[in-house]
């Protein structure tokens, strides 16, 4: 298909074709997310609920406005943010298997959550998992604190480490250390708390309330806008740090901003949705396969749109009638993600070339 398209389109038209295709797909999936679920709500009723028409069924209005809309918005923000983070990390580390979690930020968030969930039960005598809304908020705060801690550590190290590869190793090691601590905590914890932690680890787009959206939305939007300002350094970094330096880019500053941007996106999204697996790794590969370019001017908007589409699609599947919200989001993203990663490995060529 790509070849046939390339015959008819010039490079620019080719890009516009896929971008508009992704926009249409995302909008369709967004509407599907509002329409389908355990109760199917007709399209016009959804529209009426959205525009604030009070004539429609009250429970439908509540479902659309209180449950499905924030969930779809969360999916959009998470998908876009994680995909951009993944793209930035793959370019920065020139490694096709890098993702937004490569810096150890998700592990940091996991550690924070584990401390709160597993320790709170021990010390306070009440399991946070029973606290409902307050519980969610403290989990989000703990995740954010953990993620920020690791992010600060990575940022500090990035100023002192010359080599991106070193940074990659540090990120992975931090991840291992955090997992080990979580393991110890789990070992000494009560069953329900461990269960609550496991549930958090499976990820979810449905725990974000409108008030939490007030944090998630602006932070992710800022991160996404910032990523557009990093187009130039990202493009040059494809050639490696020395070439980038020779082309007049201030490596340390650019690296700091790239990590900060990805870190902020990942930390916030992980805090609210849990560690969403594979999206950040798989979406950039899908996008590069579609757009056939290495130019981040095209890749960043493309990855955002593709991330939105994939996240909305995963959310739709997780909520399919029958699963009834029972399917954790990570199970779905991994089911989409794993074949993509295998495809990347089988394509072989991409693994040998550092830039991807």
């Amino acid at each position, binding site marked *: 298909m790509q070849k046939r398209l390339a015959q008819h389109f010039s490079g620019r038209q080719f890009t516009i074709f896929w971008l508009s295709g992704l926009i249409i797909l995302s909008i369709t999936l967004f509407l599907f997310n509002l329409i389908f679920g355990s109760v199917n709500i007709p399209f016009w009723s959804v529209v009426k609920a959205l525009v604030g028409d009070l004539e429609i069924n009250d429970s439908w209005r509540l479902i659309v406005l209180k449950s499905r809309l924030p969930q779809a918005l969360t999916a959009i923000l998470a998908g876009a943010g994680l995909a951009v983070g993944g793209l930035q990390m793959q370019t920065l580390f020139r490694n096709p298997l890098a993702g937004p979690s490569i810096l150890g930020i998700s592990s940091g968030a996991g550690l924070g959550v584990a401390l709160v969930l597993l320790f709170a039960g021990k010390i306070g005598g009440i399991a946070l998992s029973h606290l409902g809304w307050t519980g969610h908020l403290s989990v989000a705060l703990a995740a954010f604190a953990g993620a920020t801690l690791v992010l600060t550590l990575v940022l500090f190290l990035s100023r002192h480490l010359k080599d991106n590869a070193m940074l990659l190793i540090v990120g992975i090691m931090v991840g291992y250390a955090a997992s080990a601590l979580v393991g110890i905590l789990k070992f000494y914890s009560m069953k329900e708390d461990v269960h609550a932690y496991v549930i958090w680890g499976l990820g979810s787009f449905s725990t974000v309330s409108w008030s939490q959206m007030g944090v998630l939305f602006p932070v992710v939007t800022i991160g996404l806008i910032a990523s557009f300002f990093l187009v*130039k350094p990202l493009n040059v970094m494809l050639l490696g740090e020395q070439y980038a330096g*020779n*082309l007049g880019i201030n490596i340390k500053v650019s690296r700091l901003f790239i990590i900060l941007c990805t870190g902020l996106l990942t930390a916030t999204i992980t805090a609210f949705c849990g560690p969403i697996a594979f999206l950040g790794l798989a979406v950039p590969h899908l996008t590069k396969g579609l757009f056939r370019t290495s130019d981040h001017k095209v890749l960043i908007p493309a990855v955002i749109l593709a991330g939105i589409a994939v996240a909305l699609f995963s959310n739709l599947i997780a909520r399919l009638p029958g699963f009834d919200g029972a399917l954790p989001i990570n199970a779905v993203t991994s089911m989409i993600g794993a074949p993509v990663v295998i495809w990347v490995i089988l394509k072989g060529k991409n693994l040998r070339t550092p830039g991807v």
Partner: protein
Amino acid sequence: MEEYKNALIETTGLAIGYSHPRHGKKVLHSNIGVKLDSGEFACILGPNGSGKSTLLLTLCGFLPKLNGEVRIAGQVIEKLSNREMSLLASVVLTERVSVSNMTVFDLVSLGRTPYTGFFGRLKNKDTDMVTESIKAVGLEGFEERLITQMSDGERQKAMIAKALVQETPLIVLDEPTAFLDLPSRIEIMHLLRKLAHQRNKGILLSTHDLDLALQMADKVWLLAEGRQMETGTPEDLVLTNEFRHFFEREGILFDNNTGQFTVEKQKVKTIRIIGKGVEYKWVSRALARRGFAASDEPFSGFQVEVKSDGKREYLLTGPNGKTQKLRTIEDLLTQLDYEEATLLTE
């Protein structure tokens, strides 16, 4: 292009090497004083591990110097920011660049980075310059080709085009011919020499291709471990025996006449070779490989007469006076071996 009154590269008392916070400094070379002017094509030669790359990386500011001073276009290198440096010197490194989905045009246009705005968008002038540079390195028509699908030689040309669009007075290349086959090496060296002379750029590269460097370089910088660096016109360095001193080791000889390395052979046997022209030259080479030194004197041993007019023929006369007509050098060598063996058994 702006004229630079000062030399593009000038070092005084420069010491290069590596410094390690705990293990201290490891000085590879010290007291280096070199100069490179615009329009000059210079090659750094030296055995592996002699510090060629270290010197180049120090001169482009990628590695800190240990001592002394480096001036690029008259300015002290430490005071130049990445941005200022990007307008003075462009580099092509040994590392093989391969980025999937990147076309030649994309790659070369990255060379415009120091001139483009915040988002790196190319203006018409930039696009024209990229196209022109791609043409200048002989990659016309390859603009939309993916760099992962090109030969090493073509990719190297694309990297040179990238250095050209950067519009710097100085271009530094670290072993640009390393992965290439012989024709591509000659092509690249020729291209660089042409660019240096036509566009009045200072071009400095490191290479292992001694004979190419001898033929094409305006200046040669010789580096070897534990020796003071020598610079000069290649011919001068040959005549003062510098090449000999730098490269000869046991079993390997540098021939000052031909400017080539030869493998030392014990030439104890002599043979008389009669003939002329290119055939004569190649027959003597083949015989030299078998350990025969050519001589014009008539003597009682073997004699080869090379007939080069019309049909190519080799007449081999043994000590017993019998003459054999042979069609190829290979046959000649086989026959010679055979007769030598029979001579010994007798």
